[in-house]
């Protein structure tokens, strides 16, 4: 039996995807599960995601049947219907997503029938089985998005394709702690090359009207190695919408340029428009980059050049590539933590070794963070050089106690930073990542004087 135990959680269970529903403006999850399930999800993907609060309808406000003995023994559909009735009555929402947890999942309540009955009455109600034992919240996210497409978007139908309209499928909201800032920057850059994006989640989204509009897009864009691909395929099948899968979540000047050019070509955007935007962004980026050159030049011997990545393949690959390609890092180890399944694992491995052949033999699909830490600690003890770890708050001690290494909090949990609209995506994100890495040099007095740095 393969090791599936977990010490130091880096994701939660499929029910964690209630956070995906909450990420849709006026999205209302209705949890059909035991009494503590929703609170656990919020503790992880809210509090431990840089203190992202309950927002409009999350946290303690989440509707839940709080199922106990009666429902487990006699079935919980009646109680679920009462809860949906209440939720529709008291909560102003644009879409209501019934999500079952372990109790309802095991006893087999027919939540699909419940949702269908409400839809028959004209309510925007969707149901999806996200029992915790089915898998993690990456899987849960895909299940939720696909259920909304099947049960809600499909009913809206295709009206008229609008050229330049693109639906964006990318990281998992909240599980990517920087999702709000990321989506804002993605939308800005797509706008920059003349596209209008249904960004679907967060403050930059118009909300359910964007979901209604999904069938009318010219194309679907999937950013990242695998999350969202199943949704794009589903939409291709349902609405014949073509999709572009760009497997790298771009960070920094070079990759973002490639990303925008490939999208521009796919969408047949006038190339001058794309080039103008890229040119403008690159000019700014280069100016910022050069102005930071003094620090690199002064502190050359004390800067980190070795890179360990402990994150999901989405953000992990994008940021690592930037560090390798533009900041001159040496890839040491890549730990993909999201349990993506064997087919995706092969794809991720191939992608990484294409990015840098030094990744060959240094890629691990591991989600037991203790195992990961033990391996990195051994490496750092051997190399004795300051390194960068793209990890989580679990790894703070690992970094500081081993060669004064630098921790960038890229993956959950993040319990020692507050995250509002920060992002490491694209042009702006690359610069922010540089700020965070090199600011860490001055944490806890690592370097106190640029001319007498003695380390």
């Amino acid at each position, binding site marked *: 039996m393969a090791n599936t135990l977990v010490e130091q*959680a880096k994701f939660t269970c499929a029910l964690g995807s209630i956070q995906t529903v909450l990420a849709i403006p006026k999205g209302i999850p209705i949890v059909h599960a035991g009494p*503590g399930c929703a609170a*656990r999800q919020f*503790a992880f993907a809210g509090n431990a995601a840089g203190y992202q609060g309950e927002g409009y309808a999350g946290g303690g406000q989440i509707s839940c049947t709080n199922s106990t003995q009666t429902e487990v023994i006699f079935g919980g559909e009646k109680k679920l219907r009462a809860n949906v009735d209440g939720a529709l009555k*008291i909560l102003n929402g644009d879409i209501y997503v019934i999500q079952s947890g*372990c109790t309802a999942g095991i006893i087999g309540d027919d939540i699909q029938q419940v949702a269908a009955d409400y839809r028959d009455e004209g309510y925007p109600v969707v149901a999806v089985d996200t029992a915790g034992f089915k898998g993690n919240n990456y899987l849960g996210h895909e299940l939720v998005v696909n259920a909304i497409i099947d049960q809600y978007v499909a009913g809206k139908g295709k009206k008229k394709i609008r050229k330049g309209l693109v639906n964006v499928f990318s990281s998992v909201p909240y599980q990517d702690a920087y999702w709000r800032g990321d989506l804002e920057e993605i939308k800005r850059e797509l706008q920059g090359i003349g596209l209008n994006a249904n960004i679907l989640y967060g403050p930059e989204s118009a909300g359910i009207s964007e979901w209604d509009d999904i069938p009318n897009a010219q194309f679907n864009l999937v950013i990242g190695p695998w999350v969202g691909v199943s949704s794009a395929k589903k939409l291709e099948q349902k609405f014949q919408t073509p999709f572009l899968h760009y497997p790298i979540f771009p960070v920094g000047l070079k990759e973002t340029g490639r990303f925008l050019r490939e999208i521009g070509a796919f969408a047949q955007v006038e190339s001058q428009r794309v080039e103008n935007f890229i040119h403008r962004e690159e000019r700014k980026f280069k100016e910022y980059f050069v102005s930071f050159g003094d620090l690199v030049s002064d502190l050359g011997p004390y800067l980190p050049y070795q890179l360990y990545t402990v994150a999901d393949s989405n953000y992990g690959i994008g940021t690592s590539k930037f560090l390798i390609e533009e900041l001159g890092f040496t890839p040491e180890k890549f730990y993909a933590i999201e349990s993506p399944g064997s087919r995706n694992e092969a794809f991720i491995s191939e992608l990484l070794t294409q990015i840098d052949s030094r990744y060959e033999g240094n890629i691990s699909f591991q989600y037991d963070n203790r195992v990961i830490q033990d391996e990195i600690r051994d490496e750092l003890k051997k190399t004795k050089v300051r390194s960068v770890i793209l990890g989580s708050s679990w790894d703070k001690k690992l970094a500081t106690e081993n060669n004064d290494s630098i921790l960038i909090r890229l993956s959950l949990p993040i*319990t020692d930073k507050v995250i509002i609209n920060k992002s490491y995506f694209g042009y702006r994100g690359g610069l922010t990542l540089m700020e965070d890495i090199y600011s860490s040099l001055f944490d806890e007095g690592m370097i106190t004087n640029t001319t007498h740095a003695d380390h």
Partner: protein
Amino acid sequence: MGLQQSEVPVRENRLKSIIYYSGNAAALTDPQKADSFVHKERSYSQCSDCAQMCAGTITYFVRNAAVVVHSPMGCFANTPVNDTQFRNASLERGQDPDRVHVLCSNISENDTVYGGIRKLQKAVQECYDRFRPEAIFVHSSCAAGIVGDDIEDTAADMEKKLGVPVVPVYCEGFKSKIWSSGFDAAYHGILRKIVKPAEHRQKDLVNIFNFLGSDTFTPLLGKIGLRPNYLVPLASVETISHMSEAACSSQICETLGTYVTKELEDNYGVPKVKTPAPFGIEWTDNWLREIAGYTGKENIVEEVIRTEHERIRPQLEELRTVLKGKKVYIFAGDSYAHNVGSIVRDLGMELVGMTTLHHDMHSDSSETGKDTLAELVKLYGDIEHYTVCNKQPYQVKKIIEELRPDVMIVRHMNMTILGGKLGIPSLLEGETNISAGYDGVITTGKRIRNLMETRGILKTLKEYNQFPYSKWWTDQEDPFYFEKK
């Protein structure tokens, strides 16, 4: 009942606990009517919390112990936050920083079909290999409970194999509507498998059942020459195993300690302190007196009480001038809300209402113990607006809007934000020990005084916020509409 049984009955059966009530406080304290309150549910509810979470507040923080959570990953998802708590709380207590030693067996769909016992065995073994703990707790979960994994036998087998206590904790979320049942489940396991009969009595040792909290009981008990034995969080397995040697047992909250203190009394002869926990001046006086009685300190206790009153008087008077007449609403407990009510009275503030998260109609030792709500009514007078509600911000919002308090005092995660969104400064009683004893009254007063400074940012929060509640619900007058349907 008894410790021979593998499980302790949940509170709705054992203590006739309720999660809904709306009325005045005094009516709820009539012992003649205790059984007439039915455990009524609301037809619509927001998310509650579960026994597994409460069990974790005890077992996750035992030093030299480790925990296997036999569940899918979601039940384990609190642990990053718990890790931070453990570290900070040990520093606060003056101990070396520690961290959680927890493993999740990560139950999958296959395990729900074929059973997850092999996975559990492997997890317990791995837990032992990784942490070399002196005891291992095994938390059950909804998934494990419904498919019927035999945790009892597995724990017994592994205990034999590893030579350390392997303690099953039956804290399946679906078993109880009262999340505090999880405290009892954890204590029950500890009493069955870790606590040993007393080798000798430690006459100056007082068991204090508490949460993660700072060391405020040493100065308090020290005044009459006694020592606190903080249990169970931050205590070691060794310390826990000797809880039977103490002179008496108390707790920071009757809701937390009701079961374990009673069982210690019945099984090991450690008397349970019957008077309410030492929150507020009068309750602290009574508490010290009762403990002095068990420890032969009657001769000095009155002098200590007098001196302590004198000592805090100047600060108390100063705080009263600032806080006098301020309207307070308390949303906590069960019993912890009553503790806070006792402090609020000392500070000269007006208690405009109280909502407890559940209410135990009986105590485990009701024949000898004192009902903390009855004691509060005796101390403060009746509380006209008294409700019971298991979180449910959609309801509590209405209560707050009706009562319009100046300050709200809360003891549960994710609930202060409700006050915040209404522009009302809300005090999170996360760390309860700092509110205990005479100094706790002063500390609470200072915290409330400082809290008033948040009014500015909360005014903005209120202005920018939009609640999700419909006009229909906003226009409803009765917060408990869904109980009556």
